[in-house]
């Protein structure tokens, strides 16, 4: 089937995107529309004594200025955390309250203090500048190590030492014993740099309160509109669920940053009620840098022990995780269950221990960002493997091979059980594709030009398809992580898929339709996908954690199973055959081995005309399913990066980047390649270019693209991709997920290549020209100077 599973079909949604006809939240125009702007805390920590809005309110066209205490009086709740973590001493985590707008203390530069509603966006912004804050600046804690040091300024009074939780996983005693008798021990301190998500479309909200109907509508940039509605209803007390519709229309990228329900969106809903106007707010890029949840920001000390044969005997990590001023929705789980559970990597490790201390600082909240915890784990493991190989004088690929897991399912020492994989073959393919055999000659040629060549590996595994509801519930999750789908067959046989997944760049309108076209043998054009509207789709958990394939599509398959069963009953009845003999092929429902058949559209028509259905059968052809996954899925891959460093300037040029991945079954190879391209580019961005920097006082230095360096086309090579699929045995299509793999696996490959080139392992991300040049100054390599 040319449009079914495995077909390289062009994306159905791209026509509207590339012709500028997409409809994003900021494109929404409604009656009675006013515009909001926020007054923000100008310093990292302050007691707000007063808000003087008189100047703003005096401006013609300014409708209202409201503040946090008023919101509190109206009963609007504080922002919540979606996952409760228990510290190793058995105590629950402690975190500071997050008021949607500041009631007394501003805790980071950008903390919302007041909302201004005005007739135009320009006027709202001008008026916000005219609001005067009377505040008293307080001492602030900015860096994660400083914030955890003795005597650090307290971010919240109720969180002593700024320590939110002190969590552990694995067996500390077993690790200590194994390390004590290890033949070789490698140690490294690594910084996983803080990143800004930079979705192309900034966050936006249009909040509409209909007083006559006592009903709210929120258009917003969300990866999970149903979760947003649940949280806004159950916890923020904006409106009960049946009186609140949340619509996430076209959304231009999320990378995790649009999972969360932010203060601005809540406040716009409340302000719509207060003012009787529809309220639109769209973040500008400066606000996005300041207030979108940042990613990563870990400092990790890692220790790995080996026996004389190069087998890992133990792995230990101690991590400080910067959570920022407030605990964002999934901020607590990212450094713990999405990080600590991956510490075995793709290796058979007999003893593992991970400790994570989560720390409040006077910076923007930090939460899940493409990969979420798994890039941090992968970086620690893969840099340790490369460093250990160098210290022991072994080939880094061979050290990996000695430790690869080879039998599946594999139970790690840190909760997870891997489903399937073939790590040796994947690495073989990558080495061949990257022409590792020819590297020595290329290195010599580069040296003749005064350049330093290096080669670095990353063989990674990650956990996608989050996640079995009961399992995550037992670990502290507030929600279940199943997905829903509804398959509606129309009387003419066309099919509508309603899904709780949300597409914000992933191409679901194409890939989900491919699954249906494949199953029913109908043209792709006869299948449409509906998502992103709580009035259309009953419920769903949304898109993140590479879950829309393994979980979202599995729900569709489960609903299709029911549709197919009913269709077969109708066909058997109409064709006077046994139900067991009915097969669906190429858009026909037929009796196997005969020429008796019905076209698919005839089944649809029969179901809705209902003149001749089996006795007792309800008319119609529409089925729904909820799918709760049995386990995570475990995509894995082998990445090889080859770089050339200019020792005079410290500039790194990525010459070649090879990625051989195991994503299980692939629905659309073109879309999967796009995901790998984007993911690897984000990983290269983290490794070479990107870093959120606050100064000592907590002012954001990287507040624009003048200082925050995003990867550009000329920063990355043309990628060299291949696949080695071992379909997951645990979901119906054998899917593993591909959305994050590139960002998870690539940073250590890049840094391993650079450290190979420059001859020192002492290098932190981002490996900017300054960082690489500085590292080179501390190394006396024969080639470094000239």
């Amino acid at each position: 089937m040319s449009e079914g599973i495995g077909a390289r079909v062009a994306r159905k949604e791209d026509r509207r995107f590339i012709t500028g006809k997409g409809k994003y939240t900021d494109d929404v125009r409604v009656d009675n529309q006013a515009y909001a702007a926020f007054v923000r805390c100008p310093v990292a920590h302050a007691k707000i004594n007063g808000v003087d809005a008189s100047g703003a309110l005096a401006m013609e066209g300014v409708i209202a200025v409201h503040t946090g205490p008023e919101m509190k009086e109206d009963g609007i709740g504080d922002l919540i955390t979606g996952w409760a973590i228990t510290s190793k001493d058995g105590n629950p985590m402690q975190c500071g309250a997050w008021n949607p707008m500041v009631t007394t203390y501003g805790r980071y530069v950008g903390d919302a203090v007041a909302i201004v509603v005005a007739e135009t966006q320009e006027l709202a912004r001008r008026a916000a500048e005219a609001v005067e804050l009377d505040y008293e600046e307080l001492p602030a804690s900015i860096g994660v190590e400083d914030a955890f040091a003795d005597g650090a300024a307290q971010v919240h009074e109720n969180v002593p030492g700024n320590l939110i939780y002190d969590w552990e996983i694995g067996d500390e005693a077993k690790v200590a014993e194994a390390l004590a008798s290890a033949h070789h021990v490698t140690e490294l301190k690594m910084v996983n740099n803080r990143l800004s998500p930079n979705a192309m479309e900034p966050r936006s909200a249009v909040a509409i309160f209909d007083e006559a109907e006592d009903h709210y509508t929120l258009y917003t940039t969300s990866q999970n509109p149903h979760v947003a509605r649940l949280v806004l209803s159950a916890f923020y007390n904006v409106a009960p669920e049946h009186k609140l519709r949340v619509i996430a229309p076209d959304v231009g990228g999320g990378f995790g940053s649009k999972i969360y329900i932010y203060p601005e969106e809540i406040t716009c809903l409340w302000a719509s009620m207060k003012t009787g106007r529809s309220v639109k707010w769209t973040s500008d890029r400066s606000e996005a840098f300041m207030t979108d949840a940042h990613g990563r920001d870990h400092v990790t000390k890692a220790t790995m022990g080996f026996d004389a044969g190069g087998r890992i005997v133990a792995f230990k990590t101690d991590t400080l995780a910067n959570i920022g001023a407030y605990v964002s929705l999934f901020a607590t789980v990212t450094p713990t269950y999405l990080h600590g559970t991956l510490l075995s990597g793709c290796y058979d490790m007999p003893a593992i221990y991970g400790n994570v201390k989560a720390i409040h600082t006077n910076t923007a909240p930090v939460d899940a960002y493409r990969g979420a915890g798994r890039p941090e784990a992968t970086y620690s493991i893969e840099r340790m493997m490369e460093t250990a190989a160098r210290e022991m004088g072994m080939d880094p690929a061979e050290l990996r091979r000695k430790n690869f897991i080879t039998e599946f399912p594999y139970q790690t020492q840190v909760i997870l059980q891997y489903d399937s994989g073939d790590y040796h073959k994947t690495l073989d393919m990558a080495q061949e594709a990257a022409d590792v055999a020819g590297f020595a000659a290329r290195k010599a040629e580069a040296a003749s030009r005064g350049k330093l060549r290096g080669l670095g590996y990353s063989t990674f595994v990650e956990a996608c398809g989050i996640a079995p509801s009961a399992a995550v519930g037992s670990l502290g999750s507030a929600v279940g992580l199943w997905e829903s789908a509804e398959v509606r067959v129309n009387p003419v046989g066309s099919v509508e898929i309603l899904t709780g997944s949300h597409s914000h760049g992933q191409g679901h309108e194409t890939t989900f339709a491919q699954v249906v076209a494949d199953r029913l043998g109908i043209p792709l054009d006869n299948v449409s996908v509906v998502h992103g509207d709580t009035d259309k789709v009953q419920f769903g958990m949304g898109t993140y954690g590479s879950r829309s394939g393994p979980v979202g599509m599995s729900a569709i398959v489960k609903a299709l199973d029911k549709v197919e069963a009913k269709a077969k009953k109708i066909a058997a009845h109409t064709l006077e055959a046994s139900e067991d003999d009915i097969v669906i092929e190429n858009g026909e429902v037929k009796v196997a081995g005969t020429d008796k058949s019905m076209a698919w559209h005839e089944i649809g028509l029969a179901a809705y005309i209902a003149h001749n259905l089996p006795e007792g059968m309800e008319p119609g052809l529409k089925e729904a399913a909820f799918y709760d996954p049995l386990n995570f899925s475990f995509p894995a891959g082998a990445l090889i990066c080859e770089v050339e460093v200019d020792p005079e300037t410290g500039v790194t040029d990525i010459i070649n980047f090879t990625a051989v991945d195991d994503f299980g079954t692939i629905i659309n190879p073109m879309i999967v390649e796009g995901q790998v391209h984007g993911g690897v580019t984000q990983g290269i961005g983290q490794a070479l270019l990107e870093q959120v920097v606050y100064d000592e006082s907590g002012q954001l230095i990287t507040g624009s693209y003048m200082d925050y360096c995003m990867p550009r086309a000329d920063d990355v090579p043309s990628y060299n991709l291949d696949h080695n699929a071992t379909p997951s045995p645990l979901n119906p299509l054998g899917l593993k997920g591909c959305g994050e793999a590139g960002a998870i696996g690539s940073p250590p490959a890049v840094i391993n290549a650079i450290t190979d080139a420059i001859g020192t392992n002492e290098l932190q991300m981002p490996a900017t020209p300054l960082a690489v040049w500085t590292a080179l100054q501390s190394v006396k390599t024969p080639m470094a100077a000239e």
Partner: protein
Amino acid sequence: MYQTKYHKPGSVEDAVAALGVAEEGKILSGGQTLLPTMKQHLAAPTDLVDVRGIDGMDAISVSDGAVTIGAAARHADVAANADVQTHIPALAALAGGIGDPAVRAMGTIGGSVANNDPAADYPSAVLALNATVVTNKREIAAEDFFQGMFATALEDAEIVTALRFPVPTKAGYAKFPNPASRYAMVGVFAAQTDGGVRVAVTGAGEDGVFRAEALEGALGASFSSDALDAVSIGSDGMLADIHGTAEYRAHLVTVMAKRAVDNAV
């Protein structure tokens, strides 16, 4: 509030008159710095006087061993101009490497020089080539024109009308771009001229563009990159930020100078 009146005079006299009556007038000549600054409310002029409509303001000509470039000539015009390419190819290459295509299609040489952004490319060429800044009032030697970061010898209502570049024997430019903004973090323009070797550095110094005498001395003896092998520049007076320490910038000055000399034609 923030209202700005836009003027597009056809002559220098009309431009001066418009500036004279404005409460707070600013000359607009491409707007690649001024307009973003206004969008961020860091500048709020009452009047913008656009000099791009002034007759002949974007002309490029060659005479008496010098290339004269009108102040309103856009970077893309300079990069593509046959006279500039023939007589001072390093200047054409420099113009073709400013910003991105959108910036080069709007930004002008006069605007860049008058703004004297410490990370702009042109000031290094103006200083190294010993160019003359021509205004509606006088002619100013490059040496006297640049007076520190964003500071120049220009008086109120003085409009740069052209830049006159003596044709060098040989010249080259090499730029190390800031990884994020891609402005020059260190840009070195090296020229062999009738008056000897002149080397000017942009992007790196706390006081904007400056001449690197140590490099000029070494290159005066031999205009080759090898001559700079043993020359290092001190880090005093160098800018420092998250992209480069003062030491790193000082190091890059020598590296970029060598590359400029290797590029020189």
